[in-house]
């Protein structure tokens, strides 16, 4: 049966569209974009999207789904449900599961579990090195053939510059991006939060911005040396934004993402929430100056994508002393609400938001979606930008609750999510 999403404002930057259109879907694909107010033929189910934005399904290109191995934190099913609730139609999951995704067998397993979950599309990211060991190469071509869309040891930087170079080079031959977790482990060693006045005040060991920037600079140089496709995960500092901006102006094949917490919070949160471990992540929350540079980077396109770095942890890892707590926060169910804050505050247009949360991730990973052009898969997110809601971690579909945004009042959320023409939210 054909379905018509009616009465909404279509925002599809890939087609240069930001205007009222009705979206007709059939057999899992976009059939047509119709002028509003037209006569609906019989046999077409209509769904109301009045006062809503109708956009290409959102894609979170950086999440941790914890399965296999840490199902007490998240499963592919619970993570996929959280993604859908957050307005996403697809996610890319990082390789640091147990066992890690360094073999086709694990990739197959993830895809099988994702299919069984019948929620959003899940695209695995394969390990760059066997066992995320930072030594040698994983079977990258095989991983790609089985469905991996990128290669990364996320969470563990490739400290060996020569290996990083060869990975970029090798991946070039298979047209698959290398996602770098930019962190110099010697500079960040022992650190628990951003190094600066607040870390001094709190007596916590610091991680300087340069621990990230040194690696961003190195990886950019290696990308330019090799011509490989480099994607920098979760950039968090003004210096990183500057380095990427310069690289792009030279024409380097570099893309990057940031996470909502880096454009929303600063290091002060660690103090204000009195060492609350939901403010501990890697990279750490930075300064106000960094936060502003991240927003500026999102505005001018230096930062291609917004990705949540959804990192579920249980109280076992989080209800402990700050220094002992694991890094990371859940983000799938707050990402859109926090990104919309940038729109409401006038930093981004709706079109830019869709670019960062759908078009760019699809393009970087080379996956379907990112547009509602007729003929494309019917992955659609319908957003009510004015709907006010309060973040309540108890209501999360995710198995984990480690969010610093508990109790925040946000404006705007996904009200319908369609995957291949089927309504999952």
């Amino acid at each position, binding site marked *: 049966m054909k379905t018509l999403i009616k009465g909404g404002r279509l925002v599809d930057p890939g087609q240069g569209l930001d205007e009222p259109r009705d979206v007709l879907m059939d057999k899992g694909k976009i059939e047509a974009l119709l002028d509003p107010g037209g006569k609906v033929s019989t046999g077409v189910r209509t769904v109301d999207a009045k006062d809503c934005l109708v956009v290409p399904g959102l894609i979170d290109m950086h999440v941790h789904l914890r399965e296999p191995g840490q199902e007490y934190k998240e499963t592919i099913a619970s993570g996929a449900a959280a993604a859908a609730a957050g307005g996403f139609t697809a996610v890319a999951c990082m390789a640091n599961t147990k066992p890690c995704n360094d073999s086709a067998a694990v990739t197959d397993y993830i895809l099988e579990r994702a299919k069984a979950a019948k929620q959003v599309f899940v695209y695995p990211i394969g390990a760059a090195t066997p066992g995320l060991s930072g030594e040698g190469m994983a079977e990258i071509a095989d991983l790609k053939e089985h469905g991996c869309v990128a290669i990364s040891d996320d969470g563990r930087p490739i400290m060996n510059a020569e290996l990083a170079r060869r990975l970029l080079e090798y991946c070039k031959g298979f047209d698959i991006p290398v996602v770098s977790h930019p962190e110099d482990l010697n500079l960040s060693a022992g650190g628990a939060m951003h190094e600066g*006045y607040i870390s*001094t*005040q709190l007596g*916590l060991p*610091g991680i300087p911005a340069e621990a990230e920037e040194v690696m961003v600079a190195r990886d950019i140089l290696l990308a330019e040396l090799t011509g490989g496709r480099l994607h920098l995960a979760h950039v968090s500092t003004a210096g990183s934004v500057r380095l990427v901006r310069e690289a792009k102006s030279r024409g380097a094949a570099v893309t990057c993402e940031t996470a909502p917490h880096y454009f929303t919070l600063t290091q002060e949160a660690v103090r204000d929430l*009195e*060492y609350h471990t939901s403010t501990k992540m890697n990279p750490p929350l930075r300064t106000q100056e960094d936060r502003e540079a991240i927003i500026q980077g999102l505005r001018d396109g230096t930062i291609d994508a917004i990705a949540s770095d959804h990192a579920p942890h249980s109280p076992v890892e989080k*209800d402990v002393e*700050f*220094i002992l707590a694991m890094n990371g926060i859940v983000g799938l169910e707050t990402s859109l609400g926090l990104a919309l804050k940038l729109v409401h505050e006038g930093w981004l247009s709706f079109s830019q938001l869709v670019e960062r949360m759908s078009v760019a991730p699809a393009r970087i990973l080379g996956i379907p979606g990112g547009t509602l052009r007729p003929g494309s898969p019917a992955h659609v997110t319908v957003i009510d930008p004015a709907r006010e809601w309060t973040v309540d971690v108890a209501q999360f579909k995710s198995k984990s609750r480690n969010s610093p945004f508990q109790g925040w009042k946000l404006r705007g959320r996904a009200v319908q999510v369609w995957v291949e023409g089927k309504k999952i939210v």
Partner: protein
Amino acid sequence: MALLVKHMLGLEQVEREDIETILDTAASLQEISYRPVKKVPTLRGKTQVNLFFEPSTRTRTSFEIAGKRLSADVVNFTASASSLSKGETLADTARNLWAMRPDILVVRHSAAGAPHLLAKLLDTPIINAGDGAHEHPTQALLDMFTVREKKRKLSGLKVVIAGDIAHSRVARSNIYGFSKMGAEVWVVGPPTLIPPGIERMGARVSYRLEEAIPDADVIMMLRIQLERGAGSLFPSLREYAIRFGLNPARMRLCKPDVLVMHPGPINRGVEISPEVADGPYSVILDQVEAGVAVRMALLYLLCAGAEHEDTDQGRT
């Protein structure tokens, strides 16, 4: 009499008024330690638990004696800080202790913020007896008490804190405390041991002792952790002692009435030479004595505050 704060987690959040109350109370309690029977019934029936997750002899003993002189029942609970993989979590330990209804907890932990975690979980008053590199408020209070006894004031004094500022909770608490009382605080050490942004906490920074000490009223030498000597922060204990140790030659640059302090335990011949530690300017043992009085004052004031609160709740 009660304090504005319910817990003593650090001097950052403590008002000058509270500091004065604590120091005045300590002064009035000090004579108890000189009586033939060194005990008053003030905290009779109260249970004080010293919860020490980090080895400590003098601080724990000082808290124990302070509690006992006020007739509290003092229980020492010594544990090693748990790792994620083994042992009971801090939160579970705290909940278990709380179930035994203590009236006040004294906590020492290697992790900054550990007492704050406990304060969120429990409503028993908590005294931070040192958390990681964050704060050690009772040390700063006893330091201020010692200086006030000797100088009859704190305002307008120049206080130099020298050594490993980056890893020192004593330095942080003293910067807050002395600044709030109107003193001028300097920190001195090699640049690798001066943490970023320390000026914003109210301290002046110098990398040379000779620059800071000539007009100082108080010089506080911090213990240098011997294991840091071989690291990447400074070359050797030998070089450290030569450049940053307080020795008789450097004492000759100082004012004749300067006070030399050290939170202990001292490394003789490293940050402080034996002649200086045992010399006429040293008030190191006065500090230890003041520790008992200041901790008695704090135990008394926080227990009294908790009781006051209970009564208030009873009325409503």
